[in-house]
């Protein structure tokens, strides 16, 4: 599913992104407030849903190569977070939906669960 379609589905605002990042696809998603989970399970093409704010969240998403971050329950990233995300071309999506509702909508629309088992060496 394209990032702009995800933004519409979640009745969300997309920040820190241009037309090319909005047309990227994210076919799998996972939700976490732990940065090490993001590092362990994040992959290109994955969408992260979180309630966590902070520059380290953006940095972690950039390092793991995930496609976009969705902030739930009306949380808004700070100016510093948006700047950092712009530099790494990482779309930030803000929805007022709860984590449960946002995950449900995405699942219903065909965004699959991220594979959190195929971790190298485990």
């Amino acid at each position, binding site marked *: 599913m394209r990032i702009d379609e995800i933004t519409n589905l979640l009745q969300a605002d997309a920040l820190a992104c241009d037309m090319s990042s909005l047309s990227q696809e994210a076919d799998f998603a996972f939700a976490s407030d732990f940065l090490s989970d993001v590092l362990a399970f994040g992959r*290109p093409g994955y969408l992260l849903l979180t309630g966590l704010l902070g520059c380290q969240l953006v*940095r*972690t998403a950039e390092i793991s*190569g995930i496609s976009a971050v969705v902030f739930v329950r009306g949380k808004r990233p700070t100016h510093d977070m948006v700047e950092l995300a712009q530099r790494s071309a990482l779309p930030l999506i803000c929805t007022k939906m709860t984590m449960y509702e946002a995950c449900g909508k995405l699942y219903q629309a065909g965004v699959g669960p991220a594979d959190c088992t195929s971790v190298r*060496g485990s």
Partner: protein
Amino acid sequence: MSSADNTKLQFEIIARDFIRAGDAAATIKRYLSQHGFDAELVRRAAVAAYEAEMNIVIHSRGGMLTALIEPDAILITAVDVGPGIPDIPLAMTEGFSTADEEARRMGFGAGMGLPNMKKCSDKFEISSQKGTGTMVRMTLNRHK
């Protein structure tokens, strides 16, 4: 041979500097991407370097992070001055963490740092001396 061979990227990591934390790993990731390394190898190197960098920031009094690009492997070394790890097998257990409240508020402290580093590496070596510091050395093979 590639133009990146024998390149050494070295960074001083400042303890408790959560503003700059992650800059070193992001620089390593950018360098590897720009030099055409395989995307999955870049991701593993970036995650391994970032976890090592954050461990220095959170747990030590400061240290160095180095990435050495050899023809057959990428070597990532993290050396810190600090309290050391008294029980390495326990620290390697998924879910075990000694991160403080400030680090936990930022989303760290899941107890996945060292296990993540090991999983991202083809060879993982760790040594630590109580009251002196810790050294982690990770080898990521460039060719399967």
